[in-house]
């Protein structure tokens, strides 16, 4: 055995050094360490050697095997590091390629806005109540101080459900006031558990028998508000409405009350808000800088009395917010009919 480890390993070392890929390394490994490789050849020759040389040759073979393995491992690490460095170059990266397209769900814009308002009001101690879409004429009109043949019924364009006029599709969320008074306020007063001021909102779907176009719809959404307590005043109403607007628009908005006639309030108002979209008039406010926002007023003593609440002891205010209109204002929707269209091209925008 004359060959040194160095002379045996040197050609292999050169091959390893020249290796450019893991495949190259695997080939070298196969050709040197596997059957028929350099180490195997060395070992295969052992039986033909004189016994004295055999241990040395065996040792050489093991040393060579070790050297090859170490060399390969080192080369593998070198190649891996080189690959990392290459990866770090970020070649061919297109910074403009789009992300994977997500499938999204979403809330209906009316629901989103209603929820915001509900959160705002519940944070101020209001309860959220619900009422049926098919209402009795009594709750929708009579108890609200609108007897049969009252001219205010004209303004309501009522869908009637039967010829006797017993049931109607509610024309406003105001029957929510009646239900709140009868079902919540009166029982609490009777039970001695009434903790004024009682505060409630009633969001819901309402109906008007009217021809539809981009700004008129026979089905839309409103939110009624009702507060009942001792000495509830116009001042409280103004305060509540300003708080509402602060919540909706995130800043102070000037309001004004104008007389408005609604049989279930006295005095009744139209509340205008200073147009949040302009300073000097725009298409939203029809150049007036005021937006007619909601009807409101002090609850008419007849309504309180009709529902079993003594108007000498208690007073309250009520308001009716047009949710559909608010949503249209908020998102700049120009056709009210889209809201209930079920058209995904509309819904997917929210």
């Amino acid at each position, binding site marked *: 055995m004359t060959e040194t480890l160095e002379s045996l390993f040197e050609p292999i070392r050169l091959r390893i050094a020249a290796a450019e890929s893991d495949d190259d390394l695997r080939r070298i490994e196969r050709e040197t360490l596997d059957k028929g490789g350099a180490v195997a050849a060395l070992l295969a020759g052992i039986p033909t050697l004189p016994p004295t040389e055999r241990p040395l040759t065996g040792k050489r073979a093991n040393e060579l095997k070790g050297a090859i393995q170490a060399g390969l491992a080192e080369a593998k690490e070198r190649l891996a590091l080189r690959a990392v460095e290459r990866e770090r170059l970020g070649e061919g990266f297109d910074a403009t390629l789009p992300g994977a397209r997500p499938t*999204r*769900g*979403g*809330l*209906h814009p*009316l629901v989103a806005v209603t*929820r915001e308002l*509900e959160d705002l009001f*519940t944070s101020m*101690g*209001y*309860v*959220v109540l619900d009422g049926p*879409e*098919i209402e*009795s004429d009594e709750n929708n009109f009579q108890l609200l101080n609108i007897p*049969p*043949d009252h*001219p*205010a019924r*004209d*303004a309501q364009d009522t869908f*009637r*459900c*039967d010829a006797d006029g017993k*049931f109607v*599709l509610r024309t406003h969320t105001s029957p929510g006031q009646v239900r709140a008074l009868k079902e919540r306020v009166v029982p609490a007063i009777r039970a001695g558990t009434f*903790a*004024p001021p009682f*505060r409630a909102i009633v969001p819901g*779907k309402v*109906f008007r*028998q009217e021809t*539809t176009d981009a700004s008129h719809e026979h*089905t839309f959404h409103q939110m009624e508000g009702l*507060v009942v*307590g001792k*000495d509830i*005043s*116009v*001042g*409280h109403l*103004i305060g509540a409405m300003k708080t509402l607007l602060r919540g909706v628009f995130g800043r102070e908005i000037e309001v*004004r*009350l*104008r*007389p408005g*006639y609604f*049989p279930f309030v*006295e*005095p*009744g108002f139209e509340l205008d808000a200073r147009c949040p979209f302009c300073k000097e008039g725009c298409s939203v406010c029809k150049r007036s800088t005021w937006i007619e926002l909601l009807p409101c007023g*002090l609850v*008419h003593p007849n309504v309180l009395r009709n529902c079993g609440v003594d*108007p000498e002891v208690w*007073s309250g205010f009520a308001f009716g917010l047009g949710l559909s209109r608010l949503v249209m204002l908020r998102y700049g929707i120009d056709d009210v009919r889209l809201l209930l269209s*079920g058209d*995904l*091209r509309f819904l*997917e925008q929210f």
Partner: protein
Amino acid sequence: MHVSRRWLARHCAFLQNIDAAELARELSLSTCEVEGVQRFAPALSDVTIGFVAERAPHPDSDHLSLTKVDVGSGELLQIVCGAPNVAQGQKVAVATIGTTLPGDFKIKKSKIRGVESQGMICSERELGLGDEHNGIWVLPSDAQVGKRVAEALDLVDWVLEIDNKSLTHRPDLWGHRGIARELAAIYGKTLEPLASALPAQGNAKPYAVRVESEKCSRYLALPIDGVKTGRSPEWMRHLLLAVGQRPIELLVDLSNFVMLDLGQPNHLFDRARLRGEPIVVRQARAAERMQTLDGVERNLVTTDLLICAGENPVALAGVMGGEQSKVGAETRELLLEVASFDPACVRRTSSRLGLRTDASARFEKNLSPTLALEATGHLVNLLRELQPEIKLPAPLTDAGKWKDPARKISLRTDVVRRRLGVNVEQLSDAKIVEILQRLELRCEGRDGVLTVDIPSIRATKDLTIEQDLVEEVGRIFRYGNVPEARLEGSLAPPPPDAKRVLVRKLEDRLAGVGRFRQTLSYSFVADASLAKLGLSELPHSSVINPVAEGLTRIRRGVAPSLLAPLEPNRRHSKDVRLFEIGKGYSPDGANEPREVHELALVIAREPSAANAKFDDNAFAFLRGAVDDVCFALRLEAPTYTKLARVDGAPYLHPGKTLAVRIGEREIGWLAALDPRVERELGLAGELKSDVALATLSLDALVATPTREKIYRSLPRFPGVKIDVALALPTGVAAEDVRVALERAGKGLARDIELFDVYTGPNAGPGRKSLAYHVYLESDERTLTDQDSQKFLQRVEREATTLGGELRKA
């Protein structure tokens, strides 16, 4: 209602000098809603008074004239005119080159039949003054050439458009005098007195009037002799035009004028046509008919109120006069009727006949019977000013059991302040008294209690109770002077609202993890849709006055609303996922309809490929979504059992409908859409869809007990994951296999996940292959290869029991 400033100034001269926009603003803040302010006939300010210096026939036309007109510019304008009445020496209204007339009609230099025309001589109609078009408008001879027509003829006027709805409770504001009274109160001015005293009457026999119905509380009848018909004076014509009334003829115009002036409708009969018959006011008889003066034959009912001459109906009380007795060119003797009719009665008749007139609109607001007398005098005095020769041959007949509605209301000044939310410094008793007096509400009293006299015209409706007076004071005080106040009360949170919490969770989960779009739908379902869904025969709540034919019925549940938009949505989207939370109704005899509150979901997508994974389809997605919402709501996992059908939902696939239960409680259903219905809905051809839908009852969900999630300690010993594939007869249910695997796991099977179902030809005839990931885990020890082997042996036995075998991997 339109209101003219010039007209208002007849009652309160001061108003003529106030900017119309300011009047509108003041009225808005104190009284009623003003929808707009417009200049009356704006073209009048753009046209010039001209003098027709010369007129000759047009050389090339028989009916055209060639004129030379002096408009004060120093030279004569040559103008071609087509009107037959143009003549030399007339004063006329000239639209010179560059003027724009109503209808966006711009005057340009032009050639008419070869002759140049430098402007136009205008007719009244061309200037927006009614529809008189029998030629050009000939101006008074003293009109000053070169001046603008509006200024020179004193025709500058502004019109306020008032929202009628905001006057519903104010019968006193349905005429100019009422609005003027209101503005006088706002500005602290006084109203001009009204000449309403009736002139002396002759002593002939008063006209006989018999009021047989209590729906007529007062009926005034006054014969007037010696009237002439003809064109109304210009001032009256212009005021009528300004408020949108077409001037017709003096008597008709006068009647309208008084109505628009005082808000009291009235009627003029041609007395000759009454043939001396007495006036009888009575209810109509069944099947009675009459012809109203619009020429329409009307069928009457017994709730209608009639004015008759003897037996013959001559007017539909409060709504419209009759054709037979209306005034005409030959009328010389009048019978003036001014009456008070029951508001509900007038309203019922006019609604029923769809005949909403200026008169009915006023009567239905409840006019004071005292106004009738005032209007009678006012009309007669106006007529006498125009025709001094008229005679009143007989005294006024005043029939009916009317009562003066004037009343007193007690007002506590403290209540005013408490309701408004102001203190005594902001609104003293003296200030309250001053405001009431400005409103012509006289009052007296002390110690904060006032007795307020409510005049008749305000007492029929609007001012009835103390709180009405709070409004009177508040609106003149101005609500803008009321300071903002905060509610004070208990800080205790309102009681929890389980359903609202549930709805929010559902919405968030479905819109989030579920990737569903929320929609909201109409409650109406079109008959055509109901027919497609096989729902036509089911009883529905409905309306009797729909917006469109076939749109009467109210949905019984939410799901049908989600099916109609599938076809249009599928045109744009391969994967439609919608949910709606809403209500449905079904009739319950004479009772309140039964209400359901539901969540409905639908998935409609392109059909999956033949080799798609077993769970790559709408039904599987939807079932997964239902599982997930139950999980999110902390409910027990739902179970599903096959249903033959769902009552009220015949549109579901007869073989693929499942009841959804939590424990014993049925909470809804999950189904594929019936393929027949799918075709009906237009989901065929390119739009062929894989559709699944579900409905869950919110009431059932809210009643289902929830379970708090309990933490389980993390596994201490590693488990093993084993994949098993079973070849089975096609009839074996996946659930049975899962149960078998669980049994084979002997309590160690922590998770069993089906990941493949193969039913293709390689499975062999009548066979299928199900493949599972099974995860075995023990709380006591590390599982070994031996455990896996034992498990597989047990699975092999279970497979055999199911008629199949364990396939070696």
